[in-house]
Each structure stands twice: as structure tokens, then as C-alpha cells.
């Protein structure tokens, strides 16, 4: 059964599918969460990586143990000397690293190697090495490497468990050294140094990819299946360098390509390994404004740009909002565009829709969302809830193994979507649908709109569906002046017929229902009319 890692306030929790958050996970010493930033997460090798919000990257294993994502290397070389009588002869050099092992003995984090020691010459002696303790509280192993006799390549020598002793003597023979040379993919992730942090993270091709808050134009990646190892040469500068303060604003991992977005340009990374990874420009002039608006759905990436929502797939980058809802994103009528960078999104698998959370015009909270039906290509919304203020959204796998959208609130709760109860935790959902202005294709002719008939799904209770009609002259695309008339429908009937609507050149209807636990499904409506003539 699945579980979730969730961030609330200044704590991380491991939550069950039943919603039990338990106690807050214990963070490593000197690591806190910045409550002003969102937590960005990725999964690699059954371990959750959390960045952006913590003061340093964190790795959370399946048991809920939180460890630093990476470790800084020892600052000084080991000091080698001739030990007591032993079996080694020749010249030797050594390095070592700090490491963290889990309770099963797995290395879950290893720092880069220390500087190389001076050469020591032995004649049937033990090789004695002195080395440092780590200042990291969770380091519980120092891993020593040495060269083979008279050699220059380093091989794993032995693990010194604990973080106490600072000297060992050993004469392990060359033949018993590990056959595999010292790892060359070690390196601290961006954000390991105090005062820095990883701002973006994604998993692609068995590696973690990220961007630090300092070098915002530089894309970094980890070793294969090594969340803690980010060699410094595993990086690409993404042009244009220094063009703005935002740098890379989003990572979109698709099957064979990783998009690297800036605000006005998108590159993609192709290749299979560090030797073949290369950036290819996808589009210029368009980019991603909101890192958390990115969702990859069936190998197509969706994200919020400056002037709308875009998809990136086999057909390239396309705006999916221009045709019908461009005004949502290019005017100040609907949304507070200043808050676009804080937008976040979720995927509703049941309805195959991309749901983008935005701030209403004049609001500083992300208190609205719009939904894009991927199958039909249609937009709906703006939606809202009166139960809480959304602060983040995502998807989880429930106890039945099904993907369900969730919305996190400012009130300390995770809200599960797709509930059959038509209410938001006991708060009514306010439906409001406004139709087109019906003119009978003769907007210049006054008509008398007759009796309105509404066909709807039969509900168990009547509810309070109102149908507000507005009749009037058509002026600048709307009705002005207008006369209003409101009908009250009873949803226990499948068909309802109301009195005559009245005269006007055009007619617009508004359906509204906001009763707690009240379903409301409207299948259609009919209105006869008679043209009265042109004045």
C-alpha cells in the first residue's frame, strides 16, 4: 500500500493512505524548512528527495528516516605512515570519504573523496592511516580507499564504521581489494553548502536533475541511481546565461527527452549518459513561468507560460489556451498575473484533466483553478472552494491503488478530490454556469422568448438550482439594457417547464446551485421564441 510524504508548515510527515500523518519526521541536525517556499520532491530508488523548502536537500527512506541528500567531502588528506609489522611492501597513497549507512548496511550517502595523501613506502608493514571525523551528526562510516602496490588507481580499502576513531592500521593485500575502482561519480549536490539550496528537482533516466539557487542557469545531474552523487562536471549551462534573475524555471521529464525551461526559451536534453547528454533548442520566445505548474501526462508536458498554458509533446510546443481562454492569461480580469510564478497544478486521472491553480484577480492567494479536459481540449472554470484556501496540489495513490488528485490547504489538511459527496468537507460547492447570448442568429430583431424548459438528472432532493435569465439588446457582445428573471428548479423532477422569459433581442442564462451535498446535472434546455420585428 502506498504512502505519502507531505510538507506542512515547518515539518515533513509520512502519511498513510488512510490519512494518518503520525508525528513529524525528524530532520537532520541544523536543517529546518523554509515555510515561505514550497517543497519540491522526486523519487529515486525508493527514496524521496525533498528540495527547495529545506535549507539543504533531504532524502527520506521508506522507514521515514530523513538524511542529508549529500555530504561535503573531508577537507584534508589522510596522513599515511608506516605501521607495525605486516604484509604490505611498496608505495601507497590513500583517500577517504564520509558516508552514511542505513540499518541494513547500505551506503545511502557518500561524500566526494578527500584530497590524496602523500606517498608512504612500506616494507612488510601495516599501512597506518589517520583521518578526520565528520561534523555531520548522521555520518556513521568513513570509507577508505588506497592504491594498489606502487599503483595510482584508488580502490575501496575498508570501511571504518562509526564517527569516532581517527586512525587504523591494516595490511589488506592487493588481491583482496575490491575489483572496482573508487567511484568517479561522487560530488555534493547543489545546495550542500550552507546557505544554498536546490530549487528544482526531477528524475529522468535513472538520475536526478536539478538547479541550485545560486547558479540558476546551470543544469546539474546525479550519477546513475545515486541521489547523493552529483559530480561537478555533470552540468550544462543553459543559454542565455545571466539574461534574467530567474534562470531555469522548470524541468519537464518525458520518456526520451528532458525539457529545461527558462521564462522565454525551452531547451531539451537528449542522450543516454553523461558523455552523450546535449541540449537542443526547442523554442525561443516561450517558456515556463511556474515550476509547479508542470505536469507530465501520458508523455506530454503541460506548463504555464507568460500568456497561457502550453503543452510539449511529439508535436513540439503548442499553446492550448489561446483559442478559447487566452483572456484568462493575458488580461487582469480573471487572475492576478503577478502570482503566475506561484501557480501549481495537479492531474485528475479520472477525468483526464489538467488542473491549474491560480490567484483570482485582486487576490494574493492561489484561490482559483481552471481545468483542461485533455480528451476534448476544452477548458472549464475558474473553479473555487469556500472550504479552504489551496496552497499546493498533487496526486496520490489511494488505498485501492488508484490515482486521486489532492489539494493541500492553508488549514493543515490534505483534501482528497473526486469524492462522491458533492461538498467540500461539508461546505457547499457553488456551481455557476453562464451560457452564450442566444439571438436566434438575428441579434438585431426583437423577440419574445417563451416558456423555458430544463432537462436535468433526477436527484433525491430538490436542491436550489436557480436559472437566471437576462433579456435585452445586444450591445458590444453582451446584453444592455437587460431585464432579469429568475426561475427556481426542483431537481427531483427530470423536466421542468417555467413561465415565459420575456422580450429581448438576446437571451443569456445563468445556472447556479450551491446547496451542501446536492448533486446537480443539467442535460439541456429549450426556449421557443417569436420574432416581434425590427424597430
Amino acid at each position, binding site marked *: 500500500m*502506498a504512502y505519502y510524504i507531505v*510538507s506542512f*508548515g515547518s515539518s515533513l510527515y509520512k502519511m498513510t493512505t488512510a*490519512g494518518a500523518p503520525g508525528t513529524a519526521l525528524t530532520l537532520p541536525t541544523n536543517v529546518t524548512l523554509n*515555510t515561505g517556499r514550497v*517543497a*519540491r*520532491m522526486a523519487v529515486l530508488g*525508493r527514496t524521496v528527495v*525533498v528540495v527547495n*523548502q529545506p535549507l539543504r536537500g533531504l532524502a527520506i527512506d*521508506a522507514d*521515514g528516516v530523513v538524511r542529508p541528500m549529500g555530504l561535503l567531502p573531508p577537507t584534508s588528506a589522510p596522513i599515511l605512515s608506516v605501521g607495525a609489522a605486516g604484509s604490505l611492501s611498496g608505495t601507497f597513497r590513500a583517500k577517504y570519504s564520509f558516508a552514511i549507512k*542505513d540499518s*541494513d*548496511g*547500505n551506503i545511502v550517502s557518500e561524500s566526494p573523496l578527500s584530497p590524496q595523501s602523500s606517498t608512504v613506502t612500506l616494507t612488510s608493514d601495516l599501512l597506518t592511516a589517520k583521518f578526520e571525523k565528520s561534523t555531520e551528526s548522521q555520518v556513521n562510516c568513513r570509507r577508505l580507499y588506497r592504491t594498489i602496490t606502487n599503483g595510482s588507481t584508488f580502490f575501496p580499502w575498508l570501511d571504518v*564504521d562509526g564517527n569516532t576513531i581517527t586512525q587504523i592500521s591494516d595490511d589488506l593485500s592487493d588481491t583482496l581489494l575490491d575489483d572496482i575502482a573508487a567511484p568517479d561519480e561522487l560530488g555534493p549536490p547543489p545546495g550542500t553548502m550552507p546557505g544554498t539550496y536546490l530549487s528544482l528537482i526531477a528524475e529522468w533516466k535513472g538520475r536526478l536533475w536539478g538547479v541550485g539557487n545560486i547558479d540558476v542557469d546551470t543544469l546539474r545531474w546525479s550519477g546513475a541511481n545515486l541521489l547523493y552523487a552529483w559530480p561537478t562536471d555533470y552540468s550544462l549551462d543553459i543559454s542565455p546565461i545571466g539574461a534574467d534573475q530567474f534562470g531555469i524555471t522548470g524541468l519537464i521529464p518525458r520518456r526520451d527527452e528532458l525539457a529545461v525551461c527558462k521564462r522565454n526559451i525551452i531547451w531539451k536534453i537528449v542522450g543516454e549518459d553523461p558523455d552523450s547528454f546535449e541540449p537542443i533548442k526547442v523554442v525561443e520566445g516561450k517558456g515556463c513561468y511556474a515550476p509547479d505548474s508542470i505536469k507530465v501526462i501520458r508523455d506530454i508536458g503541460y506548463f504555464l507560460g507568460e500568456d497561457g498554458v502550453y503543452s510539449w509533446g511529439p508535436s513540439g510546443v503548442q499553446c492550448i489556451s489561446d*483559442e*478559447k*481562454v*487566452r483572456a484568462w492569461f493575458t488580461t487582469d480580469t*480573471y487572475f492576478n498575473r503577478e502570482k503566475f510564478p506561484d501557480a501549481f497544478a495537479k492531474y485528475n486521472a479520472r*477525468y483526464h484533466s489538467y488542473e491549474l491553480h491560480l490567484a483570482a484577480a485582486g487576490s494574493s492567494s492561489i484561490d482559483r483553478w481552471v*481545468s483542461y479536459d485533455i480528451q*476534448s481540449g*476544452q*477548458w*472549464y*472554470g*475558474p*473553479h473555487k472552494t469556500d472550504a479552504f484556501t489551496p496552497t499546493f496540489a498533487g496526486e496520490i495513490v489511494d488505498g485501492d*491503488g488508484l490515482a486521486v488528485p*489532492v489539494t*493541500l490547504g*492553508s488549514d*493543515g*489538511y*490534505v*483534501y*482528497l*478530490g473526486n*469524492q*462522491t*459527496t458533492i*461538498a467540500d*468537507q461539508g461546505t457547499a*460547492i457553488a*456551481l455557476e*454556469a453562464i451560457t*452564450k*447570448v*442566444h439571438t436566434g442568429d438575428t441579434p438585431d430583431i426583437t423577440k419574445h422568448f417563451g416558456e423555458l424548459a430544463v432537462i436535468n438528472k433526477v436527484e433525491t432532493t430538490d436542491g436550489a438550482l436557480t436559472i437566471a435569465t437576462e433579456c435585452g439588446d445586444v450591445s458590444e457582445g*453582451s446584453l444592455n439594457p437587460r431585464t432579469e428573471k429568475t426561475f427556481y428548479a426542483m431537481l427531483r423532477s427530470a423536466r421542468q417547464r417555467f413561465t415565459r422569459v420575456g422580450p429581448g433581442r438576446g437571451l*443569456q442564462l445563468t*445556472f447556479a446551485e450551491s446547496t451542501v451535498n446536492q448533486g446537480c446535472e443539467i442535460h*439541456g*434546455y429549450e426556449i*421557443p*421564441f417569436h420574432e416581434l420585428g425590427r424597430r
Partner: protein
Amino acid sequence: MPGKINVYNLGSKGVNVVKSPVHLDDGELTKAQNVQMDAVGSLGGIRKRDGMARLNSSVMTGSGKGIISLPLPDRSSYVRRFFVPYDYGGGAIGSNTFWESTDGTTWTAGTRGVVPQQLADYGASLGNGLGGGIWRWCVHRNRFYYPANSDGALHVYDGDEDTDYRLFKVPDNPRDGTPITKILSIVPYSSAYLLISTRDSTSRGRVFLFDVANGTLEQLGPETDLPYLPINPLVFQGRVFVGMYHGAGGSGAEVYYCRPGDASWTLDETLSSARGYIYNMVPFLGELYAGVGVDVGSNGVVMKRDKDTAWAAAATSDGTGAGNHYGPMAVSQDGLTIYGFRNSVSGGAAPTNRIMKSTDGASWSQDYDAGSGSGTSNCGIPWVDTNGDMYWVMFSASGANNGRIVKQSGGSYTVVKNDSANFAGPIVALSMPA
């Protein structure tokens, strides 16, 4: 002229705020707040969107800032279950296998798995001699490895599946003509390997490296014929150390080490005469400590191996009788305190049985009075729990009766099981479905 507006594709063309409301198609809306198009059973109409419900019953502090789902096994609902071998004291074997407890306080005789290796079955050299029950079994990747009493085969109890599996029987030692090989200790070596030590006869044993995934069994240092019983090996400074437990008195026990791939074991130390029974060894503050039992006329002793590989006594008991011992040893979860069980026989001050502790390895003080009865004269390898609690299983050398299980929590000791229960050997804890 009459006309009629018929709209039965309401909302099917979504919201359009680009065109004027006059120019929209019938299926288009200018606003669709909390409107949902349901493609399953009601396409063609609009409906109020699905509701939202709180997932967590108890509020968390602050605003939600991120979430990720892991479709991986969740052990949050698991309960930790302690196991102590059920020992029949050499009598008829029944159906009980282990004493079990989910809280460390209430213990019941259970039937999970199979009857584990019995104390008496190890024979005079161990079971009825000094320090019976000091072998160690282990939980590795949430699987409990232990030997069965019936045929000595290695079993594994899977905590996730709540199921027992028989793995294999360690082959007899070809150096020995008497096939009596039994598993003594099972100790984690790494994430993929366990160390298994065996008693092959009263004076011979071996240590194996067991690959838990692939089932291979590799004898460590196969060219060395280890004298007596290699009990409780451990990994220290990248090497496998093991102390010997002699079957007969007189000579001092040996400490050996080797590494996987070594042809032979290297003798690290031979203790002085009469110090013939190494109970177990633990690393403490970067140095290796061994709890040792002795023969008549000597004191039990804690030996310490310092960085220069020299061994020296760090503490002694005050008795001089046969069976005098200082061990097994354990280290607190924070690594700052070392503990040792001490049994003084003949001539020692009361109490005969006690738990000693030290924070520096040099100065030792009594931490628990275990009385002077025979029922608490021996102790299995203690369990250091994830929350810092420690559990000690005490019993008589000859079998089982009148022992006790002692829990140490926050510096205080509580007897959580104290009657004629039959127990012996090590205590372990396994996470299992509730």
C-alpha cells in the same frame, strides 16, 4: 417568425472568453465555475464537480507546501513484535516456538515459525557450560534469521509476509568425522550478506558469509581450522572479528580476524590462561571490547583492544568460581554507554548477577541488580531498540526456568517477564502487519 433554442450539448465545448458571448456556439459557456464534464455516463450535460474531503483526521500545523505519493509498501501500520526463543529446558518439545510481545511488556507464548534451536541441544560445551544462550540471531531487511531445532536448518521469518521459510542446513565440517554442525550466531555483515558461525564439534567451528539474495555460502578463511566455537562475529574496521568460546577450561581464548577472500584467519590475540570463553565483542568509542568468561580461580573480565591492537583488561568481576563471566556486552543506541552483564561465582559480593555500565570503558558501576539466583545467572545478547530501550533476557545455564526479561527504558529497569517461563537466547524485534 417562430423559432426555438434547443441546447443539448451544454458545456461540451467548454468556456470561451475569446469570442463575444453573441458569437459563441451553443455548447460553449462564458463561465463554468465548479462545472465538470463527466465523460463516464453523463457526457452532454454539465454537472457540479465532485467534492473534496479531508484525508487526515488530525490537523497538521501550517500550510501545505508539497506532497508526493510513493506506490511502495507502507509499513506505518506495522507493529513491532519482539521474539525470544521458547526453550524447553531439555524436556519434551511442544508447539510453542517463541515468546512474543508487541509492547515489550506483555509476553505470550506463540507458535509463529518453528521451534528454534534449543539451548540443551548445543551440548555440554555451550548449552550446559558457561554462558549458555549467548549466541546472536538477527533481523536483516525485516526478516528474522534463526536456526531450527529439528534439524538445525537456517530459517527465515518474513515480517512482511508473516511467514516462515526453511532455507538450508549448513553442511557438516569435512574436517570433522562427527556430523554435529549447528548454527551458533547469525550477524549482519552488509545489506546483502550475513555472517553465520557454526559449532561443528566441541572444539571446532566455522564462519560463513551468506548471500541472502542468491543463497551462496562462502566459508571465511577456509584454510584455518578454527579451534573451539567462533561465537558472535562482528565487523570492525572492515574486518570480520570473532572470539572463541572454548569447550574446556584452562587455555585462553583466541580472537581472530579475516576478510572475505582471505585464505586464512589471522590470530589477533590469545587471552591469558583461564580466560577461555569470549561471549561477544562490541565496538565502543572506536575500540573493541570483549566480554569474557573464565575458569575456576579467575575473575570474569572485559577486554579492550586499543588502536595499537594491544589487548588489556578494562574491568573484572569479583568471583573466582567456575562460570564466572562478564558478558554479553552491549552499547546504548547513542553509542555513549557500554553495558556488560556480570555473573560472579564463589567469593563475589552480592548480588551475584548484575548489569554494569561505563561511559569511558575504564570506570564501571552497577546499573541493575539482577539478584543472586541461578535463574538470572546467564543472559542472552541484549536488544537495543530503535527508541533507545534495551531488553535483557536472563535465564539459568542449564536450561530455562525462573528467568526474567528486563527492560531498560530511560535509565530505569523493569522486569517485564518473571516467572517459570522457558526462555533462552537472544531477543530480536521484527516489524509485522498488525
